[in-house]
């Protein structure tokens, strides 16, 4: 299969992730959208790595996985602490800070 197919898939995943971030209200689902965007980047890295025949892209994918794991730790900690306070994870309810 040509590299293009993987790149198209990466773009589609990135777009789905971005749309999820924009339209979903549950902050956990928003967070899932962000993870999808990161994984889309990983897929693009791997496809390009194959295309150029260098290992840099694969190396990058490993780093991104570790960073994404760290991000999950921080993100879920924040979301859980908010849930315990307000009994909701909807981003629409987070509206105390306004002009």
């Amino acid at each position, binding site marked *: 299969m040509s590299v293009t197919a993987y*790149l198209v898939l*990466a773009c589609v995943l*990135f777009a789905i*992730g*971005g749309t999820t*971030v924009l339209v979903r209200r549950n*902050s956990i689902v*928003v*967070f899932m959208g*962000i993870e999808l*965007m*990161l994984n*889309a*980047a*990983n897929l*693009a*890295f791997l*496809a*390009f*790595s194959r*295309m*150029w025949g*260098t290992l*840099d*892209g694969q*190396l*990058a994918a490993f*780093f*991104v996985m570790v*960073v994404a794991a*760290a*991000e999950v730790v*921080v*993100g879920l*900690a*924040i*979301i859980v*602490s*908010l849930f*315990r*306070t*307000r009994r909701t994870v909807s*981003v629409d309810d*987070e509206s*105390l*800070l306004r*002009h």
Partner: protein
Amino acid sequence: MSSASDAFLSLDWGRLAPVLIVLGAAVAGVLVEAFVPRKARRPVQIILSLLAVVAAGLVTLMMALDPDKRAVPISLSSAQSLTLDPMAMYLQLAVCASALLGLLVIADRTVQGDDAFTPQAASVPGSEYEDQARRAGLVQTDVYPLVLFATGGMLLFPAARDLLTMFVALEVLSLPLYLLSGLARHRRLLSQEASLKYFLLGATASAFFLFGCAWVYGATGQLTLTGIGLQTGQHLGMDPILLVGVILICVGLLFKVGAVPFHSWTPDVYQGAPTPITGFMAACTKIAAFGALLRVLYSMVPTLEWDITPALWTVAILTMVVGTVVGVVQKDIKRMLAYSAIAHAGFILTGVVTFTSEGLTGSLFYLFTYGLATVGGFGVIALIREVDAEGHMRGEATSLDQWRGLGRRSPVLASVFAIFLLTFAGIPLTSGFVGKFAVFAAAFGEGAWALGLVGLACSAVAAFFYFRVIVVMFFAGEPAEPARGGLGVGVRTQGLTQVAITVALIATLVLGIVPGWFLDFTGDLSLLVVP
């Protein structure tokens, strides 16, 4: 295999020392949390983190002043993922200076023992557990290692030589800040909300940055900035892909500096985060992120200058205009300074997008002085607390109504804050004026009249809202009806904040009255060399 180990052994560890000291102290701080008895933890953490930042700053300063080291910038690590050229050293110095002052404000507490952070971050606001934690005098000392981790990331960010290192540094500096934003002692709901907003938007921006890195890698087959720079010179027929990648990377970086249209997090996070943290991140994140942006624009894609300049001009102009216009109507002092920070990002961008050495020097000088003044300004805000009718001290008084007549209640603090406002406004004899003059002169010199004129107009409008605060503090009468939550009064603390404010004030005035030597120093160091 042997060549890799040779490269490892022949690393110039001395040049890496600032980053190693700060990150090492951060790891040690985590161990302190585990092994040091609770009573001793706070002093140990404070001393450890202050020493680490001072040591890192001194080592950087020594390297920056050493002509040999300055002349021969090197790449570090076997994969050559860091470069310590003069610009990186200068920005690391700026980060260390602002982080040191920021840490002093963070470490301070009132004479009653009230610091800026919640006694127990895991407790639910308003719960019995939180009350018990407060009565037991618990302290959330994890703050210090988190600040050090963030500082370590900020030291790496402007020195990154490839996109992968840049991404890792971006996350290392961001993740602790997301947490720190949510730890305020007072108004915890606002603080937690700020934390969530910062996290969701920041993580999205990181994803854009990363996706951009992937496309740039695809277009050039390289991750190092130099390699990409060389490839972009020769047209490979991949220009559209490269351009998309570069734009996505710029989106991620412009988010971090708080440029319009990627600024929406700034006011909320600046307002909700604990004030000492706001000062720290306002100053240091801006320095580090502009460093990375400069590196991407100047050493990675100089050949794309013609393609991305229009977009960057638009962003710079929008940033200045939105920052000032929306800032005028703010009623909360922290929120107002957040919009002021957005406007300042626009002024600095003006120097950046000229793509000249004058513009570079101006931006670097601006970043250094703005960082110090910002920490000082937020340090003053951290000291102004609201006092209710019975004389009980509560959270910070951030509403502008509560600042009415502050000049009579706390004349010294009010005067000092007025000077910081004057430097933000860019009034002569303050460092803000010199910085503004340097970037606008560079813009006009390069024929960027539109940028320069918009910048001047915005400075004039912005001066209005800074002066409004001064008028409110010194010349406004008592409010007709008492301000909600009680009036703001300067509070007595253990003195660390006062030290930070004094240093920031002296720096602001000295660099405003005799800026020549420091401009020369900046000019010497405003050099990007990617070996």
